[in-house]
């Protein structure tokens, strides 16, 4: 109980060295590695929640996610490719746009929420996106864009998805420099303002599709 409290509060206070030393200490005393990882995730959940409420900021979220990643690596090895072959979500910055900060942070947040995400990178053509969605059968496609030329790329991608997959196409979500008007213009299903909104929306969609059991506490 004491270690739990210390570990969770060290993550919430974004004390990297303290978290790592608590985890190493716990492991050396034979504590269950998965419980330690779960405690770090709980701390990160609190940070993400505080970020959504405006009490924490992007820098805090990035650092807390980094701490989680380090602990995950200590316990599980490289986390990046977990479930890479059967992702629930395919995510890319659309054609003509090379901005990747927002996408990367959103992916880190989603993975922290336990979601399996395949990162397609930046400047990804509609063809590549559609092929990847068909190949992986992902339930959700997330597209990011920070320049206004991205709107047309998003629209082209949605049109191609409809043409190739019709009713089997995934739920589409956009983020970046977008709003309600861009959502309508591109024909996507949802738009989100920040990465925690995006991660929460994906969880909700997957739960409703029964890919994730409703009993999951997040």
């Amino acid at each position, binding site marked *: 109980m004491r270690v739990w409290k210390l570990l969770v509060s060290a993550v919430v206070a*974004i004390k*990297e060295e303290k978290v790592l030393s608590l985890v190493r200490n716990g492991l050396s005393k034979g504590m269950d590695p998965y419980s330690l990882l779960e405690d770090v995730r709980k701390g990160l959940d609190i940070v993400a929640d505080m970020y959504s409420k405006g009490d*924490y*900021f*992007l*820098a*805090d979220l*990035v*650092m807390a996610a*980094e701490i989680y990643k380090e602990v995950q690596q200590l316990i599980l090895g490289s986390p990046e490719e977990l479930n890479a072959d059967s992702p629930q979500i395919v995510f890319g910055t659309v054609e*003509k*746009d*090379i*901005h*990747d*900060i927002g996408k*990367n*942070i959103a992916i880190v947040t989603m993975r922290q929420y336990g979601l399996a995400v395949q990162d397609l990178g930046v400047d990804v053509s509609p063809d590549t996106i559609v092929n990847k969605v068909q190949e992986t059968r992902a339930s959700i496609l997330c597209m990011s864009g920070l*320049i*206004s*030329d991205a*709107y*047309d790329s998003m629209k082209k991608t949605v049109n191609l998805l409809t043409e190739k997959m019709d009713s089997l196409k995934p739920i589409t979500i956009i983020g970046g*420099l977008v*709003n309600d*008007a*861009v959502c309508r*213009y591109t024909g996507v299903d949802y738009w989100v303002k920040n990465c925690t909104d995006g991660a929460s929306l994906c969880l909700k969609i997957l739960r409703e599709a029964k890919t994730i059991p409703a009993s999951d506490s997040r």
Partner: protein
Amino acid sequence: MTAANELYEERLKRIKTAAALEKPDRVPVVPLANAFCARHMGVKMSEFCTNPKISNETIIKSFSRLGEFDGLQSAAFYATGLSTLWLSKVKLPGYDLPENELWQVDERELMTIEDYDAIIDKGYNEFLSDYYRERLDNLEAKLQPLSYMPQAQKNIEDLGIVLFCGGMATIPYESFCGGRSMPAFLKDLFRIPDKVQEAMDVAMVDILENTRQMLRAAKPIAIWTGGWRSASEFLSPRLWNRFVFPYFKQLVQAVVDEGVIAILHFDSDWTRDLEYLRELPKGKCVLALDGATDIFKAKEILGDHMCIMGDVPSSPLSLGTPDEVHDYCRRLINEIGPAGFILSSGCDIPPNAKPENVKAMIDSVK
């Protein structure tokens, strides 16, 4: 005095009156547009963004079709120049991208964690000289086309148009964050805060001196002193108050001391910290917003302290109708103006803006 001269003086007076928080004969309109002009005139993006003479001609031609405005925030454009602000390479159309695509800052971790020590040991100017040569592919030599800028300025002024932004300077946070890449830099702020601050303090000495020299040589009316990476929305107040605002305060003071208006070109959301901007010299700065900061809140907090400029966002300019743009502009004119307000686009007019929407923005001040 020629007609163009008279027009120039009339427009300059209008802009300066607004900047000094007074009420001009009408709200001035001073757009910022680069890529939009290339698309509007059918000029290849690859030529526009690599040749200041072509961009100058294109900007003039484009705006000559869009109604009567008071000034521009850019007389010419040279994309590679962005590397000096964010210490990153810029992907150029025609070279790294298809010829009609938009140039984009290619953020990578070019600046290493050891570079903070190099800055502290060598000073910022010497560090930059090495960095430009070794990591930005001999940037210094690539900046030669910028020597056309004084002529570009003269070309628009000869037409009676005021160049309202005659240079650029920013704080170490923006440059370090670009060079390190945002995720790595944010982690530096947690892991080695004292080292980052020491490097910023050392860099600031040269940044201030370089800015003073630039202002004395070019004698602009105003310069861009802005950023987006250091916006309040990304940082806790603790980090913002340590790594961002003290440096903006020094930079703005240095600009104002030279008799030049500081354009706080603040992209992203700065709403939380607007109150701090009251510590900057009154009536000497222009807060230029891009639609992310609440401009109405800015008016409430800063309306009696600094002129506000903006903030017609990209989305209505590219996806909206002229009526929608007109209505938003009139709201700005009535609620943020008529005193201490300059109408403009939120940051750059996007490349796919509809010309009729840009015209609606310009015409709305009449």
